[in-house]
């Protein structure tokens, strides 16, 4: 089993514990890939191969521990495990494997994991070939100075075309196609070769064992019993159990109550040496006191400089989250705080809406992230939420030339009260079979995209680069892209810059009252269409009331579209005689209960579902 294979290095000072592993025998690497290319299955197979988990404990995709991850078949959080492997050279190696997410929203998790590694195994699906996140992740790894080891997975599938995939990889990374590992995580073919290649090609860590401690916190999560659990990579020096530690960014000092390995279960040890990866428990219970990306050093003999860390993820999409039941406001705050511990990218501030009451304006990395957070809040914290239309962060130039960032359409000053308004652009990359280039160009230019380079990775696969306003892609762009390309195109993007644009705020008025939750900032050219779409949708969603309810879309004071929900004319029980009274009362009581799910907006009853449905991503257009 695992323990018997651990290589004990020289200089053990603690007979009950392992001493640090010789750095030459350590290999730290991440698996990176486009979503669904088989990272997690490969990770499971590697663990199985070295006996890190028994058959009995083996569940498919063991590292995807969150229910939601399992259900959606995606990895959201990076996961880590220590493997002990006896290589063909007869030597025993410690391999720390970090599984990473493949969705564009979570690329910061990839950066984090890469910061703890010397190598990256880049997996490409033999059927799908190189996809947008394959390229994006490869560049991330190269920029982080990692050794990138390409591999082609799913070679067992009938439609597999490993030669084509290999050609595409060579086009991006260079090298020769013949050197690329070919494997099937499903059948186990090529697994030995993967491990041998990792041992051979991933450089061992080169930390200074005699220098003051420097360790990187590359992830953390909250455990109800243990408090905050940090995942750390020791770079220089030693991290010992009981040590007093200084967290360089937060400037806090905490004791190392427990340190150890992840196998993936917790195995406490006395010391983590240079190059080692493990966990650290300090007893800190408070959510915000540990910063992922921080450098840990010794409190008594601190290092002088912190590790580079990595860019903090910036929320790109903002949406208001409001509890359906106003009494749940505090519960929502607590739930967000708990989620934040495992998700540093989640940001929020309190927000008040006339229509929806008290809630939070939350920042997300993208739409998937937003969906996942909302789903987790509802599912794991038993909350019933209304989310407002997603928005991006705009930059407003004020009359005094100062620049304000606004994350909610409500905060946009009137056009006469601002000098300028800029919106975020992204650099986007789409990888697609060549036959879909036309429809994609049409889609991108229709969304104000500026098409740039077009590179052929192979005669059939094209990389299209363009610049596009983030606001145009956060809502439904990806879904439409998928449907226009039968699912074959993939998208990746990264923030570019802010550009002035002719943007207007479209307000939606119910019975003459603006409903803040429905306001949106859109390009002037798209304002009429947006107004028409929203008023039309709302007409279908708002039940008839006691009076006519005009639904208007307006820019400033100018009405651009109008619909009317006609007053209800008949709402009466035809017969109510002696025989019916108790029954009619009960029936009306039930109907009244149903109305409690309505939100009063001014004097208009709006069903909860209307807020969700009105803002739903288009399935047409």
């Amino acid at each position, binding site marked *: 089993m695992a323990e018997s294979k651990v290589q004990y290095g020289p200089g053990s000072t603690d007979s009950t514990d392992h001493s640090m592993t010789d750095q030459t025998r350590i290999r730290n690497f991440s698996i990176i890939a486009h979503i669904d290319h088989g990272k997690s299955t490969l990770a499971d197979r590697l663990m199985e191969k070295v006996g890190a988990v028994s058959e009995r404990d083996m569940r498919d995709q063991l590292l995807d521990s969150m229910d939601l991850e399992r259900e959606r078949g995606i990895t959201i959080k990076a996961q880590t495990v220590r493997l002990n492997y006896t290589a063909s050279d007869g030597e025993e190696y410690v391999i720390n494997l970090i599984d990473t997410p493949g969705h564009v929203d979570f690329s910061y998790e990839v950066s984090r994991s890469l910061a703890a590694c010397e190598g990256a195994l880049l997996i490409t699906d033999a059927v799908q070939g190189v996809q947008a996140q394959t390229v994006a992740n490869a560049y991330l790894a190269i920029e982080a100075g990692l050794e990138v080891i390409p591999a082609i997975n799913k070679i067992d599938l009938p439609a597999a075309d490993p030669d084509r995939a290999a050609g595409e990889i060579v086009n991006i990374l260079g090298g020769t196609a013949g050197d690329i590992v070919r494997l099937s995580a499903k059948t186990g073919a090529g697994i030995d070769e993967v491990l041998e290649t990792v041992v051979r090609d991933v450089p061992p860590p080169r930390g200074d064992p005699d220098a003051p401690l420097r360790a990187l916190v590359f992830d953390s999560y909250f455990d109800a019993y243990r408090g905050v659990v940090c995942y750390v990579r020791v770079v220089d020096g030693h991290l010992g159990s009981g040590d007093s530690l200084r967290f360089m960014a937060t400037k806090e000092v905490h004791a190392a109550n427990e340190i150890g390995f992840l196998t993936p279960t917790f195995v406490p040890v006395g010391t983590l040496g240079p190059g080692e990866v493990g966990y650290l428990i300090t007893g800190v219970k408070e959510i915000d006191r540990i910063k992922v990306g921080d450098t840990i050093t010794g409190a008594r003999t601190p290092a002088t400089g912190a590790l580079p860390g990595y860019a903090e993820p910036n929320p790109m999409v903002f949406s208001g989250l409001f509890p359906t039941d106003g009494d749940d406001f505090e519960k929502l705050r607590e739930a967000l705080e708990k989620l934040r511990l495992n998700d540093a990218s989640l940001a929020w501030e309190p927000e008040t809406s006339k229509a929806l009451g008290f809630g939070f304006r939350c920042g997300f990395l993208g739409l998937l992230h937003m969906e996942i957070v909302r789903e987790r809040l509802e599912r794991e914290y038993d909350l019933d939420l209304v989310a407002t239309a997603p928005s991006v962060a705009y930059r407003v130039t004020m009359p005094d030339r100062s620049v304000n960032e606004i994350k909610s359409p409500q905060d946009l000053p009137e056009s006469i009260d601002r000098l300028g308004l800029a919106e975020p652009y992204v650099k986007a990359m789409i990888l697609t079979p060549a036959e879909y280039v036309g429809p994609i160009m049409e889609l991108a230019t229709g969304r104000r995209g500026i098409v740039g380079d077009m590179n052929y990775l192979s005669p059939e696969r094209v990389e299209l680069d363009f610049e596009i306003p983030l606001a145009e892609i956060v809502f439904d762009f990806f879904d439409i892209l998928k449907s226009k390309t039968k699912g074959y195109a993939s998208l990746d993007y990264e923030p570019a810059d802010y550009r002035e644009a002719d943007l207007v705020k479209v307000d939606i008025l119910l019975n003459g009252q603006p409903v803040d939750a429905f306001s949106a900032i859109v390009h002037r050219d798209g304002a009429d269409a947006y107004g028409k779409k929203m008023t039309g949708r709302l007409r279908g969603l708002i039940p008839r009331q*006691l009076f006519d309810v005009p639904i208007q879309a307006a820019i400033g004071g100018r009405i651009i579209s109008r619909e009317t929900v006609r007053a209800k*004319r*008949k*709402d009466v029980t035809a017969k109510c005689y002696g025989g019916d009274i108790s029954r009619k009362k009960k029936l009306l009581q039930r109907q*009244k209960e149903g109305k409690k799910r309505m939100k009063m907006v001014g004097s208009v009853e709006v069903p909860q579902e209307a807020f969700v449905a009105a803002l739903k991503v288009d399935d047409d257009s």
Partner: protein
Amino acid sequence: MTPTQADGYSQSSAAYVHVPFCSSICPYCDFAVVAGRDDFADRYIAAVCSEISKSEPWRPLEAIYFGGGTPSHVDPPLLGLVLDALALKHGIAVDAEISLEANPEDFDTVRATSLHGLGFNRVSFGAQSFDPGVLVALGRGHQPSEIESSVRAAREAGFENVSLDLIYGTPEETTDSWNDTLSRAIDLTPDHVSCYALTVEMGTPLSRAVRDGAEAPDPDTQADRYEYADTVLGAAGHTRYEVSNWSRAGYECRYNLTVWAQGEYEAYGNGAHGFRNRRRFRNIRRLEAYVESIENSRSARAGEEVIEGWDVELDRLFVGLRRVVGVATGEGTMTLLDSDDGRRLSEAGVIVRDHDRLKIAKPLLTDAVHRSVIALQPPIVSTETNA
């Protein structure tokens, strides 16, 4: 009718008698009815008489209503036995209103004369429509001409209070056919007219048909038909006094006025509902179960709801607001007007305060008012403290 007269019915004594037998069951009907069980009528009537004889004696009844089902479908002498039992137990006031529902398809002079001879003085015909297509759609077995002959038969037999029930908004109906139905009904110079919107009740063949794709009645069309009916009936000398009821002056249904004034009424027969001693009670609905219960000297009651405290006030509004006279102002009406719902209803002109009355000005939105009424919480009374 003045508000005082209408509210005065709270002191009336009334009784309802359920007669479940029909020649066939209409697809929209959700009452306790049976078809093809005429053989059971003798046993059933005996059970009803037994139930009456065992009930607590009251005072002479001022209004008696035989509803169904189709009371006119059973042999008149059987109904006579019930009247005898009521007279014996409670007495029947000299000028009592004694109503029965009748179906035009089996109402002839002989039957009319017999019923009138037994003491019935008001007959309410399930005319429903004068459009043959609508009658077929409603599953009715009679022809428009039979409505006319039935009314003539009733008049000849001496009925001085004749009512017609009409149903509007059947998908097969047209604006013209509804207008024609109203004018032919008015031509028969009824004393009282009830117009009901066709309603899809749960569990009926009609609701199953609608679920399976049949056209449902359109509420806006029904609103048009209702408003038209109110206009032409008004022009013909009928005044609306409740959501669905119109009459010539003095011909309002006294039994129903009692119910809407929160007056008490006995109830006999399967599925019958009554209100006595502040209890709204209901009898066993299934015919055989009801009869067997009575035959085995057990109670016919299936359940009851005690109306007390704040609920008395809400109940008063619930039944009373359906009347054109509305209800006298009181704690309930104040609470309603002070509530958010009440303010919206006032602003929309659905409810209006008229001196010491609260009225529904838009009868077609009555349920919107009622939903707000039943949700009202009692006003918080500040209590003195010892400190």
